[in-house]
């Protein structure tokens, strides 16, 4: 279970990345955030952002047309 969940369902670019960045600021290194998005762009944007920021994408899956990402703060 992630430490924080970001519900970005229904939101479009750039909001899933923005919301995730705001949520991860509240975490300590090693803690995780789960992002749920419906924006197809998030499929490439969240992993790219996480990688560039030094965070780790621990998990990614699709469920009912929603995209889930678990990101561990680096």
């Amino acid at each position, binding site marked *: 279970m992630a430490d924080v969940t970001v519900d970005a369902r229904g939101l*479009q670019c750039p*909001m899933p*990345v*923005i919301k995730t960045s705001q949520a991860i600021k509240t975490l300590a290194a090693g803690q995780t955030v789960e992002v749920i998005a419906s924006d197809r762009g998030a499929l490439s944007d969240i992993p790219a*952002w996480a990688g560039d920021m030094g965070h780790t994408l621990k998990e990614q899956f699709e469920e009912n047309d929603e995209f889930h990402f678990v990101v561990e703060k680096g």
Partner: protein
Amino acid sequence: MTAQETAAETAMAEGSDSAEAEKMVIIAASGDLDKAWPVMILATTGAAYGMDVTVFFTFWGLEVLKRPDSGITGDDWRQKMLGVFRKGSPDKLGLSTMNFAGMGPWMMKGLATDKNVASVGELLELAQDMGVKLWPCQMTMDLMGLSNDDLIEGLDKPAGAGSAISLMKDASISLFI
């Protein structure tokens, strides 16, 4: 003090992760909705990347920063004419093509609301919350007869090309939109 030092101090004062944050500069020279939108999307995303983001608004780009109630500005009749035809504020921007006397932007904004795309005004507020620096161009303000009172609150001091170049010299990303 150079603009860079000022920017670095501001970054520290605002509690950015580090004064060494990478810099992103956007020159926003257009008052078209279809240009202002990507400006604000990229500015907020740059901030989400932990970058020290500055947007320099020049020429029609200043329309984005105008207060909705700024009305007719300036003393010269030509400046007043500009105020008649360019109302300013994010809600009144037109499209560069398919404007159709406001019909195009009205349809575009309706679509954006339906699709839950954040508006330029919302992104502008978000950018300010995220510590994005918004610089109005002093020369354009003088040219168009705009005072600080005609622009929204929370902006950085008006600056010029020298400050913009000084920032861009050391920026990882510099864009002209």
